[in-house]
């Protein structure tokens, strides 16, 4: 071994028992443990949401967002066991488990375009997410049914939810606006058909602070479309807004005469009227049914046609039926009408309310005794629409109201047109009864006898008449001879006229006058003979 190799220097021992390097795994382990613990602590609540379709949902990608903050993640999507939908398992982040309460609602945010709103456009780029509306319940829940449509309002928006009952939905849709004094104050939240299918239940939401304008007396009506009215002031067109024209809407108002609007009971159901006018009519809380039996045609009478008492609409036609009476083998048309007695209620002098036109008070029976009758009248000559008129006919045959029947039958009276019609018909009938044919035959017979008569006259009388005429001519000739004799007689009579008679004297004057004229003419003729130029130049002046 070479001795040139130097020996290493000896140095004092450094007092290090535990190598510092063990700090490294300690730290790493601490970090790992902390991560594990925090992961375990951060492990959120597992919930399950049932959706109809998984359109746009992606396991591990689709987020659950509340106020646009990630509160969870869809971790798994599977078909429901009955294949009616999908079940999305989701994990809510730590601290978001308060979201999962009884009335929390989940829905998938997709791009939606409805009449009034375009929503969820951001999801076109970012992909769909699941939105949450946190409920107010404190009851925890793990299984949810996802909504198909986003709710029209979320529970964190203050306001009030109301239920309206409508005959039909009209053009309303979820999100259709609700107007108060033409200001949008809410929207339609939901609608569904009544269980019996006879009406539509519309749920609307009025935003705070406008919800305090709703009282138990508020009236709601469809504000969709254009309301055109033709009255004494001309044509008026009313619409709520262009939006409501397109997508429908609801308007409401509270009548001002209500002294103190009462609070609304929780289960109040308002009616949704067709239009404003109908909404503001006094509600008819009472309705009495009567039956009218008409023998005439009811063409032009429709259910809903007014029943009017001297121009005041007091009811409407409820139904028109036909009825066959096997006993009398007659078909009659019973028309059922509804009369709203409150419209008939009048104020007597003194302010007391009179007995209402009710069946109980036998008030109607009294009226019928005094001649109250129902009559069909033509409302419009153009359309031929009929209405039922109630009026008094004191000359009507007396009858009484049978209150025992339900509904009682009000006596009817043929209408005035019907009267006229009946008269014309009876006249025609009478005319029809006249035996025209027989008369015509008789006339023909008469003519024939006349004809034969004339022929007989011709054959039998004419020759006799001719001989008679010849005789008459002979007689006439004799008469002429007689007349000659008569003239001679007259001449002799003339002779016998006296010469001093007036006629004679005048004749004599005339003769003298004539003689003078003849003399003058002779003189003229002489002059002309001598001076024929006088014919051309006139009479020459005598020479002096």
């Amino acid at each position, binding site marked *: 071994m070479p001795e040139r190799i130097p020996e290493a220097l*000896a140095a004092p021992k450094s007092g290090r028992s535990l190598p510092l390097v063990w700090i490294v795994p300690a730290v790493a382990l601490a970090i790992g443990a902390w991560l594990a613990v925090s992961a375990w602590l951060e492990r959120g609540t597992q919930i399950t949401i049932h959706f109809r379709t998984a359109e746009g949902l992606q396991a591990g990608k689709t987020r659950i967002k509340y106020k646009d903050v990630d509160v969870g993640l869809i971790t798994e999507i599977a078909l429901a066991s009955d294949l009616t939908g999908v079940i999305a398992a989701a994990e809510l982040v730590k601290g978001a488990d308060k979201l999962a309460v009884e009335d929390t609602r989940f829905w998938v945010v997709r791009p939606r375009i409805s009449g009034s709103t375009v929503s969820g456009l951001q999801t076109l780029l970012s992909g769909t997410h699941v939105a949450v509306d946190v409920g107010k319940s404190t009851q925890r829940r793990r299984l949810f049914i996802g909504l198909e449509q986003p709710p029209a309002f979320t529970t964190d928006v203050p306001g009030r939810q109301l239920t309206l009952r409508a005959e039909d939905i009209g053009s309303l849709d979820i999100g259709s606006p609700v107007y108060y004094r033409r200001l949008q104050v809410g929207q339609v939240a939901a609608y569904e058909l009544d269980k019996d299918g006879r009406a539509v239940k519309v749920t609307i939401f009025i935003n705070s602070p406008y919800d305090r304008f709703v009282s138990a007396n508020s009236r709601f009506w469809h504000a969709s479309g254009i309301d055109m009215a033709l009255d004494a002031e001309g044509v008026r067109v009313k619409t709520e807004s262009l939006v409501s024209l397109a997508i429908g809407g609801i308007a409401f108002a509270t009548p001002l005469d209500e002294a103190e609007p009462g609070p609304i009971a929780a289960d109040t159901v308002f009616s949704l009227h067709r239009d404003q006018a109908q909404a503001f009519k006094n509600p008819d809380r009472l309705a009495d049914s009567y039956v009218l039996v008409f023998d005439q045609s009811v063409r032009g009478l429709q259910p809903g046609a007014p029943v009017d008492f001297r121009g005041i609409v007091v009811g409407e036609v409820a139904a028109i039926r036909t009825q066959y009476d096997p006993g009398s083998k007659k078909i009659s048309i019973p028309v059922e009408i509804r009369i709203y007695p409150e419209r008939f209620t009048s104020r007597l002098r003194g302010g007391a309310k009179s007995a209402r036109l009710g069946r109980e008070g036998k008030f109607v029976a009294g009226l019928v005794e005094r001649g109250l009758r129902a009559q069909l009248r033509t409302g419009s000559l153009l359309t031929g629409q009929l209405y039922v008129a109630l009026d008094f006919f004191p000359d009507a045959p007396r009858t009484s109201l049978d209150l025992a029947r339900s509904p009682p039958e009000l006596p009817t009276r043929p209408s005035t047109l019907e009267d006229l019609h009946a008269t014309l018909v009876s006249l025609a009938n009478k005319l029809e009864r006249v035996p025209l044919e027989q008369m015509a035959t008789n006339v023909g017979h008469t003519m024939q006898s006349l004809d034969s008569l004339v022929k007989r006259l011709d054959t039998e009388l004419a020759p006799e008449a001719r001989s008679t005429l010849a005789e008459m001519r002979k007689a006439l000739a004799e008469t002429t001879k007689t007349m000659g004799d008569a003239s001679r007689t007259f001449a002799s009579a003339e002779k016998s006229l006296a010469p001093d008679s007036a006629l004679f004297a005048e004749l004599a004057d005339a003769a003298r006058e004539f003689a003078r004229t003849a003399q003058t003419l002779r003189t003229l003729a002489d002059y002309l003979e001598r001076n024929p130029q006088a014919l051309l130049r006139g009479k020459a002046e005598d020479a002096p």
Partner: protein
Amino acid sequence: MSASAARLGLVGCPTCRLVSRVAPAETMLCRRCLAPLELRKPGSIGRCWALLVAAMALYVPANTLPIMYTSSLFGSQEDTLMSGILFLWQSGSWYLALIVFFASILVPLAKILGLALLLVSVQLRSSWRPAERARLYRLVESIGRWSMLDIFVVALLVTVVQLTALAAVHAGPAALAFGAVVVLTMAAAQSFDPRLIWDPLEQAHA
């Protein structure tokens, strides 16, 4: 059979490579450069174990936590190592998926397991296949740096893709853990003294 330097009472300076004779003292210093001289790396096994345990501990979060957050107009997304590989595989880039899987999952795991095997065999003073174990050590030492591939990718993306509103990439906690695993395994490989593999053999011969 060759004799080892230690058996001949010689020690090499790790810094200036000067060979010295072993002095009869607790600690020795190099006569030339005053670097501490050791016959074998002091506490090699303990240090290696410590670093290896730390690497093992961090290997778990490195694989389970998100390594990268991507947020863009199209939503935000977080990826773990494995989900990234799965995404690559499913989108058809199976070769890329294999590379990333190899570099990010297999190599660190192989390093950890290989080092553990070496440590256990050395501690048991096993004389089992020393040449292969030596080759394993060389392999572990040489492939260590390749695991940094993922970290480079993440670092590159984080710096390049920063369009604030349109898209942004952030490194996740797993990137840190993963980087730590790589560094710790490299350090562990460094701290292992491969001469320990041969010591039991020599003692058996001696």
